[in-house]
């Protein structure tokens, strides 16, 4: 499968989720926008979370 893409999204996800701060951003999961995007029809295909840059992830360890 490496032929299809050298990127390893599973590994990246694992790294990000292990450095995640518990509770930070949980409110997002409860927003009406997210739930409507998840359960809605084809006219709500895309959800964009827009945010300014914070510190790099290396500062968070």
């Amino acid at each position, binding site marked *: 499968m490496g032929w299809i893409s050298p990127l390893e*999204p599973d590994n990246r996800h694992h790294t990000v989720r292990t450095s995640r*701060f518990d509770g930070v951003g949980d409110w997002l999961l409860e927003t009406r926008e997210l739930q409507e995007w998840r359960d809605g029809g084809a006219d709500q295909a895309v959800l964009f979370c827009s945010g300014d840059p914070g510190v790099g992830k290396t500062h968070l360890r």
Partner: protein
Amino acid sequence: MSLTGRNSSSLVIDRLCDQTKEEDLAVAWSYCDYSIQQEQTVVNIMGAIVKQLVGRDGIPKDIREAFREAKKVGGRPLLVDLMRMLRIAIARLPQVFICIDALDECLPKDIPKLLESLRDIVRESPTTKIFLTGRPHVGDAIHRYFTKAVTIPISPNEGDIRNYVETRLDNDEVPEAMDNRLRAEIVRIIVDKMSNMYVGVSPLSKMYLLTIA
């Protein structure tokens, strides 16, 4: 992408993955990163999506054939090959969620092509949902391709800041120097100051907020 940005993507991915246990859906994602810009071409990002969607229960015969044909031509797969594989893979699944984190960390020339590819998928497979994160400026490009895209502005709220500070204090290397009163005072002052800064608000001040904590 910020603390909350990456958090958002990984939270949404985890929540969707949890739901795959009860509901028939599939989730694929890609985290973009400045440090690997050369590697994260549109072809490689779409390839990563294909990998995740076909890898679930072994590779179906028609996709194997599409692979073989693409390989015959030699070298790396082309975007057109990957889009064909992706169409086949998505058609076999009831619902697909694709998450792209930090779109703005792709090379600027790759962003329109990536959005165009995602738009083609959504057009052909209207049940497919796309989750994107990025700095606000990529919103314009996103809306050019998806006029009905819904935007959620993300910035740490008071609860997020409190959580973050508490976590850092929990990991303090000299815990004996801390008592409950001092701890409460630290949390109160930082949360107070940071919340005020967010109200006041230059984009630059936001960048440093979480370093201060």
